[in-house]
């Protein structure tokens, strides 16, 4: 009997102390939950986000934190699984009582977690999930990466700024990415007064585009929009060159890896595309970010999700600072909605669908296939 009493006493003491300590902790730090894929085949994206977020939090804490309180990010690994994402979310919200969530990273996991986040109405910002429906009807869910169609809109505006009046389009009618970009591009062209003189399509998996390119060539467009990934774009640039089709090519973020699949790098100088971030960006904030990232991690922030992760942290912390000392969820959400801050990937505000209205990075290549930053295309 005596022994049992001792045991219960000790247990009670431990329990009491631990609750006490969490209360004390909660008072000095602002806790943010970080959810991302930190291991497995997609870890490169999650780790990029984590590095970006941690970098900003470190800088923020060095500058005094939020209203004098230090900020702490508690990271949970989803391993790329929706189930683990939900478990991580529950742990962060129920045990750690975080005031906001950054993540998840992958679209599938984000879709699952967003469902739970909507029930809790906790502010959540994903730096990388691009599927349209993730933020639909969820007032508390935001993102800092732009959607695929948004890039096409920016490319059409860039074409307008370049003084182009006649463009052609070739797209893959078998992938959602290509079709989505194509539709948005054509719509925006109509809006800004660029004539789409020819529209060609190709089936998924095709390697021969000469027939379509010959048709395009026949209409003499000033540029051709290619909403494709690198491997197909490489084939198209080579075949266009083969048939003597001299024109400019425009594309979106899928083009970024074209340099790995093209032999004749010279052809890349005709290609212009949009990306989420460039390490050569000319804003002071982006330069500082690249330098700080380099200093902390000894590598370039080459995966652009480091930049969107950093920006997610910027947006969330900015909103928490404005939400007042209690950091109530609804106040933070209202503050995110009203966001108007400068991030490393450009100026960020949110639209009605909680998608960022921000700048696209217009990029091209030099004759050796190195990426060159052209300019920021501001919304």
């Amino acid at each position: 009997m005596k022994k049992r009493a001792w045991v219960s006493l000790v247990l009670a003491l431990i329990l009491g102390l631990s609750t006490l300590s969490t209360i004390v902790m909660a008072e000095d730090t602002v806790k943010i939950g970080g959810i991302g894929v930190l291991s497995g085949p997609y870890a490169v994206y999650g780790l990029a986000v984590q590095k970006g977020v941690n970098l900003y939090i470190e800088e923020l804490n060095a500058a005094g934190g939020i209203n004098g309180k230090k900020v702490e990010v508690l990271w949970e690994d989803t391993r790329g699984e929706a189930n683990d994402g939900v478990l991580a979310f529950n742990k962060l919200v129920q045990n750690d009582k975080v005031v906001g969530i950054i993540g998840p990273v992958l679209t599938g996991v984000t879709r699952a977690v967003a469902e739970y986040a909507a029930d809790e109405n906790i502010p959540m910002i994903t730096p990388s999930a691009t599927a349209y429906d993730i933020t639909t009807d969820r007032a508390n869910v935001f993102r800092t990466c732009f959607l695929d169609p948004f890039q096409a809109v920016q490319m059409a505006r860039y074409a307008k700024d370049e003084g182009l009046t006649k463009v052609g389009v070739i797209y893959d009618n078998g992938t959602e990415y290509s079709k989505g970009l194509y539709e948005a591009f054509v719509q925006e062209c109509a809006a800004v007064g660029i004539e789409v003189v020819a529209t060609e399509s190709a089936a998924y998996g095709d390697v021969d585009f000469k027939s379509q390119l010959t048709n395009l060539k026949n209409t003499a467009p000033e540029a051709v929009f290619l909403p494709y990934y690198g491997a197909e774009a490489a084939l198209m640039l080579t075949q266009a060159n083969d048939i003597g089709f001299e024109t400019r090519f425009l594309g979106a973020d899928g083009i970024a890896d074209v340099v790995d699949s093209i032999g004749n790098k010279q052809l890349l100088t005709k290609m212009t595309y949009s990306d989420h971030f460039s390490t050569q960006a000319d804003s002071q904030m982006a330069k500082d970010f690249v330098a700080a990232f380099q200093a902390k991690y000894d590598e370039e922030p080459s995966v652009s999700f480091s930049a969107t992760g950093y920006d997610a942290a910027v947006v969330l912390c900015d909103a928490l600072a404005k939400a007042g000392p209690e950091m109530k969820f609804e106040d933070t959400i209202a503050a995110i909605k009203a966001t108007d801050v400068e991030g490393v990937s450009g100026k960020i505000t949110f639209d009605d669908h909680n998608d960022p209205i921000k700048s696209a990075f217009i990029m091209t290549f030099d004759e050796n296939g190195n990426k060159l930053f052209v300019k920021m295309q501001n919304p």
Partner: protein
Amino acid sequence: MTLFLNQLINGLHVGSIYALIALGYTMVYGIVRLINFAHGDILMVGAYTAVVLTTMLGLPFPVVVVLVILVCVLFGVLIERIAYKPLRSSPRISSLITAIGVSMLLQNLALLIFTPTPKPYPFSLNIPPLSIGGLQIGFTTVLTIVVSAALMILLQVLVAKSRAGKSMRAVSEDYDAAQLMGINVNTTITFTFAIGCALAGIGSVLYGLAYPTVSPTLGSLPGLKAFIAAVLGGIGIIPGAMLGGLIMGLAESLTKAYISSRLSDAVVYGILIVVLLFKPSGLLGRRTREKV
């Protein structure tokens, strides 16, 4: 008009490549009645050989072409000796399944060694297109059409005039009788595989110049198309493979240009079905077929 001519030339370009590969299918079928499904993958072997030789050894283009042909021939002969020869007297279905197995083996080996990420083909002929009248024709296109035509004529002459060609025809006509007449059947079969794979090797170079990304599944699609070309023209008949390849290339290109890219495969396969309905032995197939 120029547009139409340009589209015809595009079709001839693709068609010549199909025809070149189809020759390999048709010759092997003519001799051993085997559809060598690994033939398309020889194209992939050739493409990766070019990548390895250039990126690792830095050899110049003409040397690489010769070595690519040799490696393709070597693969073809080895596949024949290791996989098909032991099955020569087994039911035909066994060899057919083995052929599919060899194809998978080659693709997965490439996947293992080279990873699925596509690599750029190491050469590109950066020669401006030729202008003939109002027509602009790509140099690669001209090269492909000319080389393929020359090879087909050469092959016809080889089969019709040379001693080896004579024994090929004899073996395809009657395997046992040829053996009785003192023809070395094994050598003849090996020779047929070697010629087919040499053509595939040259095909891989022309294919690489036209479609300069190399991936482990590179050979599947042209392999399938070439097989269909061979069937369309009449499998086992050399001029049939050429005709079938050209028809397929033209049909594909013109459908893409004037109807819809979505329908190009449907049109090609539709032609095949119609032809086989009316002439089951293919366009040039005869009742008493002269094989190879």
